[in-house]
């Protein structure tokens, strides 16, 4: 059964209509013994991929491709790494992107596939001054 309703699909298609760059979602998972949420994540991503030809899903085996997981700082699954063309956007999702996290994923795709962060000029100026690494972990729940 589809997780997205026809109404959801149409709304998401509209949101994704203006992507100018190819967005690749690296989906880290495992084929045997993975968490149940990895299956949900996989289904959501597959449904999402069908809504825009600018979105590609690439499944990466977390167990067999440890080096690749380490490269992207993925230490748990399910995880999604957002790429703009082939470049890392440094945006990650840990856990199944359902509920509110689904909208956050759509926003991240729009960001990665577009040309502007949409932040205020003052914010951009402050961020441009950052020289040390900053690691943000935003905890959310599906509802």
């Amino acid at each position: 059964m589809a997780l997205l309703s026809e109404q959801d699909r149409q709304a998401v298609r509209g949101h994704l209509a203006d992507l100018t760059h190819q967005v690749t979602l690296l989906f880290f998972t495992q084929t045997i013994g993975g968490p149940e949420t990895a299956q949900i994540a996989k289904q959501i991503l597959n449904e999402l991929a069908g809504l825009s030809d600018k979105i590609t899903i690439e499944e990466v085996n977390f167990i067999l491709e440890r080096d690749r997981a380490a490269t992207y700082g993925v230490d748990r699954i399910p995880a999604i790494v957002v790429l703009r063309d082939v470049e890392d956007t440094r945006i990650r999702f840990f856990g199944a992107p359902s509920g509110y996290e689904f909208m956050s994923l759509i926003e991240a795709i729009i960001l990665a596939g577009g040309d502007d962060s949409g932040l205020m000029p003052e914010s951009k100026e402050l961020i441009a001054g950052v020289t040390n690494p900053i690691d943000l972990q935003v905890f959310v729940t599906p509802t």
Partner: protein
Amino acid sequence: MAFESPHIRAACVEATEFMDLTRKFRVTGVPKTIVNGTGEILGAVPEDAFVREVVNQ
């Protein structure tokens, strides 16, 4: 913010799926943002305040 700076990484973590992290960072409400493993920003803070807090951590 990650889009704007090569020095910034941003992860969205589903709190109920990763109880080890939820416990470690004492997440009792969402959204809660952890900066460099120590700093905390609680709730949905307006953009200007959020950016200032993050860059000043």
